């Protein structure tokens, strides 16, 4: 398994403009979702007088911190539809954006360790097949064929009883994805404005007409929020609440090693997921810290727990050295499904609630959000993901159902 190094990138892939006084559309948040929203507003809807406002530097939030797992093997029809749409876009984007961001379809194994896991997993495989998503159930010996370093011995605390496998799933280089989208946005005329924090919304009765920022007031025809962990903070500024809670989510990498891990392995039961990045570091993540937090850091016992789980599954990692841990802030919704929706404020739309798993959806979230902002109507993909579902009860409960971690 030898992969060429990612391409060297030039010093500047986009301009660094000052904000204009007015835009047709403003996207708040310059992570993957904000960039994808701007890209599809310009490309699919011909709206190019757009600014993406980012309080820090471009893609320095969760976009720079995630473990890059891309898959579409979710349980419910609504989720399958949007994540599979995203996966198909991922398959075309490197060519479309003319940027090799190392999308590597090396497959993902979601391990089952209990009888209930086995039942849920086979059910999910069947649901996936009905929705045209590639999925198979593998017995332990077949798991070992796909990933020889997983310990499938029955003599461990939580033996591997099998796994679901999605061959088209994989990983990509997150920074390069952001740069590819940023360059494409810039070429389409989008202003990517960094160090520009949105601090308030100006309303004419119930309609948003401008945003207040650390670089002055900017008028806007339509405003879309793509602020991930800070979604609630922005909603509060605009005068409404979102059903999300912000939690720290941590991940870590080891030192660089020879390629030993050919796929992506996730285990909800022992709570770890592992892949090996192109350069050779083992990339691992687990679940959120339990408490609400905006500190971009979590507690060490969460890392300890996740390392214990990793060692049980991969005894070969026993001597691996941890290089670096970090945290992001994820906005978790009650049903572990996103919110792409109109809000109580006219002309203000929100994309959030992606929690621990929104990287994989980046292009589809941008596609659906752009449609919603441009037309004022939801796209078929995000219609079920509106805020109304919390009142109607039509939740799309992917907690557990879709092996939801990432």
């Amino acid at each position: 398994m030898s992969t060429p190094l990612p391409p060297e990138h030039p010093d500047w892939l986009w301009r660094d403009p000052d904000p204009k006084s007015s835009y047709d559309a403003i996207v708040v948040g310059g992570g993957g979702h904000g960039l994808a929203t701007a890209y599809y507003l310009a490309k699919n809807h011909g709206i190019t007088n757009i600014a993406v406002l980012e309080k820090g530097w471009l893609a320095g939030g969760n976009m720079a911190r995630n473990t890059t797992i891309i898959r579409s093997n979710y349980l419910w029809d609504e989720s399958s539809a949007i994540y599979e749409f995203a996966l198909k876009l991922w398959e075309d984007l490197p060519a479309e954006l003319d940027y090799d961001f190392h999308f590597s379809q090396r497959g993902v194994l979601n391990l089952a360790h209990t009888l209930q896991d086995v039942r849920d997993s086979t059910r999910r495989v069947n649901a996936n097949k009905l929705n045209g998503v590639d999925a198979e159930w593998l017995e332990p010996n077949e798991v070992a064929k796909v990933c020889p370093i997983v310990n499938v011995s029955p003599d461990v605390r939580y033996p591997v009883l099998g796994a679901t496998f999605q061959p088209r799933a994989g990983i990509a280089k997150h920074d390069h994805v952001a740069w590819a989208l940023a360059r494409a946005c810039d070429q389409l005329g989008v202003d990517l404005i960094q160090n520009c924090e949105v601090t308030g919304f100006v309303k004419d009765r119930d309609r948003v007409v401008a945003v207040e920022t650390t670089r002055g007031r900017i008028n806007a025809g339509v405003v879309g929020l793509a602020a991930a962990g800070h979604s609630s903070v922005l909603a509060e500024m605009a005068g409404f609440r979102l059903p999300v809670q912000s939690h720290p989510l941590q991940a870590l990498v080891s030192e660089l090693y020879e390629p030993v891990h050919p796929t992506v392995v996730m285990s909800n039961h022992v709570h770890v997921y592992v892949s090996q990045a192109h350069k050779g570091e083992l990339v691992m993540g687990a679940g959120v810290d339990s408490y609400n937090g905006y500190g971009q850091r979590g507690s060490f016992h969460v890392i300890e727990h996740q390392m214990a789980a990793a060692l049980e599954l991969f005894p070969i990692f026993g001597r691996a050295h941890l290089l670096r841990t970090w945290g992001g802030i994820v906005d978790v919704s009650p049903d572990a499904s996103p919110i792409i929706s109109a809000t109580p404020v006219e002309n203000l739309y929100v994309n959030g609630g992606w929690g621990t798993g929104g990287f994989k959806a980046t292009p589809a979230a941008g596609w659906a959000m752009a449609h919603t902002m441009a037309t004022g109507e939801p796209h078929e993909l995000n219609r079920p993901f509106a805020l109304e579902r919390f009142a109607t009860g039509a939740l799309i409960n992917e907690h557990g159902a879709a092996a939801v971690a990432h």
Partner: protein
Amino acid sequence: MLLLTCPWCGPRDETEYHYGGQAHVPYPEDPDALSDEEWAENLFFRDNPAGPFAERWSHTAGCRRWFNVVRDTATYDVLEVYTGAAPAATQPGVAR
């Protein structure tokens, strides 16, 4: 790792506790009278400030009792620990 002071047992590591989310969310006085929107608020909508936040913790590996903490969710500083419904009087402006 947070260090939280149980009102009954004293300072203990976070791993001894279970998190309970926002404090002082009342059960509706007249549940039958609530609209679907009001039920949605009650069930699914919680404050989520970046700053002081009144939240519940349970000392599950100790005395198993619940108590309240005002913690800054941006700095993780613990500002106040108290029991029962008593308001955190020293923290005006904290959303409850």
